């Protein structure tokens, strides 16, 4: 039996939404097989990573706070990728956002006032924007590839954290630990459900994604992003400047990565520590693709990836699966998703041998 690929007249919408679901399902199946082959409890690993976080209600709050930064960053990246702007340095923009927020928290340390948190958020978003504007400037002025520059700046930003918390921002009472002092009350993100760790960042993430969805589908801005990404020549003809679009895409995705950073430092961390680079910026790339570059899809994808993070921790304690297994499951999901993309433009046809062809 042979199969052949046949081009569809128009891209399949069914496949567009079915392939992400299939990618997650295939990841669970293949993951169970592979992890069994290398000597772990494969089925147990899949159960703990993908199901326990959902069935155990104590884990729901963890899901919320892990999904929030992924959704916020993933939303920004989905807008950029729609415009064919490959910002893969969101991790660095997230870090600079966190550092900018930390700066405000340390400057206002000991003060009270409702304005401190909004000021931190503003600083964080501006920080992420400023960091994203470097690759934007280099791309538009000098045609330097934004993939490499945004990524290199991420590695540099990690060193900036180490420097700041080792020297100028070091906690004076920290008995030698390289970390900043704990933020004062006014600089901490409040929890929204009493008795849990669910902070204000969770509803903010949902609101951000919904607003982004509205803008992307209903406004000239969204139209511009989609046209420039899908048909750059037509966009130029239609009067949309490519440079302006690159700037917009980088600034929006940078601002959202910075927002995630400041919410993270004011929420779960409440101080700047060496462990602040949490890989959310890289995982959000998977979130954006799994969500089909659609902000509403990103909400779902953000929760799926949060499940794997929380589940990875569960599997580590219950069945001794190394934490790195989470990354493999996440990468497999992306592999399957990219492989499945071919089904959007092509259909698989069975090739029936022609009986007439010289059968006598």
């Amino acid at each position, binding site marked *: 039996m042979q199969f052949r690929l046949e081009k569809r007249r128009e891209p399949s919408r069914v496949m567009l939404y079915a392939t992400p679901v299939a990618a997650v399902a295939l990841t669970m199946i293949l993951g169970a097989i592979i992890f069994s082959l290398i000597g772990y409890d494969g089925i147990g690993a899949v159960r703990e990573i993908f199901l326990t976080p959902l069935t155990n209600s104590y884990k729901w709050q963890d899901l919320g706070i892990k999904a929030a930064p992924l959704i916020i960053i993933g939303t920004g990246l989905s807008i950029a990728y729609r415009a064919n702007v490959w910002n893969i340095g969101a991790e660095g923009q997230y870090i600079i956002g966190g550092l900018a927020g930390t700066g405000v928290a340390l400057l206002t340390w000991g003060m009270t006032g409702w304005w401190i948190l909004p000021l931190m958020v503003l600083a964080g978003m501006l920080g992420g924007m400023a960091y994203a504007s470097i690759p934007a400037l280099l791309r538009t002025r000098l045609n330097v590839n934004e993939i*490499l520059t945004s*990524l290199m700046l991420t590695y540099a930003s990690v060193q900036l954290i*180490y*420097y700041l918390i080792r020297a100028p921002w070091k906690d004076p009472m920290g008995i030698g630990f390289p970390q900043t002092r704990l933020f004062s009350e006014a600089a901490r993100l409040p929890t929204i459900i009493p008795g849990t760790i669910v902070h204000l960042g969770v509803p903010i993430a949902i609101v951000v994604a919904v607003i982004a969805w509205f803008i992307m589908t209903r406004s000239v801005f969204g139209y511009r992003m989609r046209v420039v990404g899908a048909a750059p020549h037509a966009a130029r003809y239609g009067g949309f400047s490519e440079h302006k679009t690159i700037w917009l895409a980088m600034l929006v995705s940078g601002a959202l990565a910075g927002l995630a950073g400041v919410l993270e430092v004011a929420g779960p961390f409440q101080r700047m520590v060496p462990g602040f680079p949490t890989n959310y910026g890289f995982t959000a*790339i998977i979130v954006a693709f799994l969500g089909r570059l659609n902000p509403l899809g990103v909400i779902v994808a953000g929760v799926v990836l949060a499940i794997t993070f929380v589940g990875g921790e569960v599997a580590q304690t219950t069945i001794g699966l190394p934490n*790195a297994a989470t990354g*493999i499951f996440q990468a497999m999901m992306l*592999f399957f998703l990219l492989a499945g993309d*071919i089904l959007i433009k092509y259909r698989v046809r069975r090739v029936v041998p022609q009986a007439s062809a010289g059968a006598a």
Partner: protein
Amino acid sequence: MELMIAILVTVVGAATPILIAALGELVVERSGVLNLGVEGMMLIGAIAGFVVQFHTGNPYLALLCGAAAGMAASLIFGFLTLSLSANQTATGLALTIFGTGFSALAGSSYSARPVTLMQPLFPAELATHPIAKVIFGYSFPIYFSFIMVVAIWYFLHRTRAGLILRAVGENDQSAHSIGYSVIGVRYLAVMFGGAMAGIAGACFPLLLTPQWAERMTAGRGWIAVALVVFASWKPFRLLAGAYLFGLVMTMELYAKAGGGPLSVIPSELWAALPYLATVVVLVLISLRRDASTNAPACLGKPFLPAN
């Protein structure tokens, strides 16, 4: 004098893995494929090389297994982008995420266990004089990297196979129409790039730090990708670029060791310097007129035969 030679030997060591990985990527890009998974393939090569060196103590076998592991990883990328025409940028990123996770999982039981560094290729008596040390004092991968610079230049510009590979990268439709297998050539190029990245990764435990550490390649794979742009897809320029970066990384080592004028600058800035230097190098190269025109015309575009 002694210090100068010690620095020179360190520069060579630091530059070699970047050079080997970048040479592989250069061939891949010349065939019209952009594989951004170099960092991931290097990490897979690094853990494969480490495990083999740990259990057998045979560095040549370790390099070979690193190459095989890198090649196997590159086949995932090849299958998705060449057979299924998946987006090359996204698939390369996925490969790096995969390699990071895979190497961390495979290495999780080996952390802080030491391996022996690879010994110099020539007998120690040859390398006693300082000048002789600069020539005869290295282990096999360093000589391998030099040979590959020349071999790849010769292959690309003096052989028929190299001509076909360049034709595929410059104009896939024409190459296809005169009967060359575009996908076949690209598969071979991607596999070669994977093997080179795997060897480059294996160099980390064998030449630089004789133990396993997660993410031990620390972005060197990305610097290798950037260097291919810097070299405008030419092997000898790649050699110069890799040594420039070797020098920057060596300055970081000396600054961290403490003392001397280098330690006036915070060590974190030294650590950030290779990445910042990459950005600066990319900017400088973009200022040159001919830089972008040298890129293979089909770089990063999926091949769909027009019939």
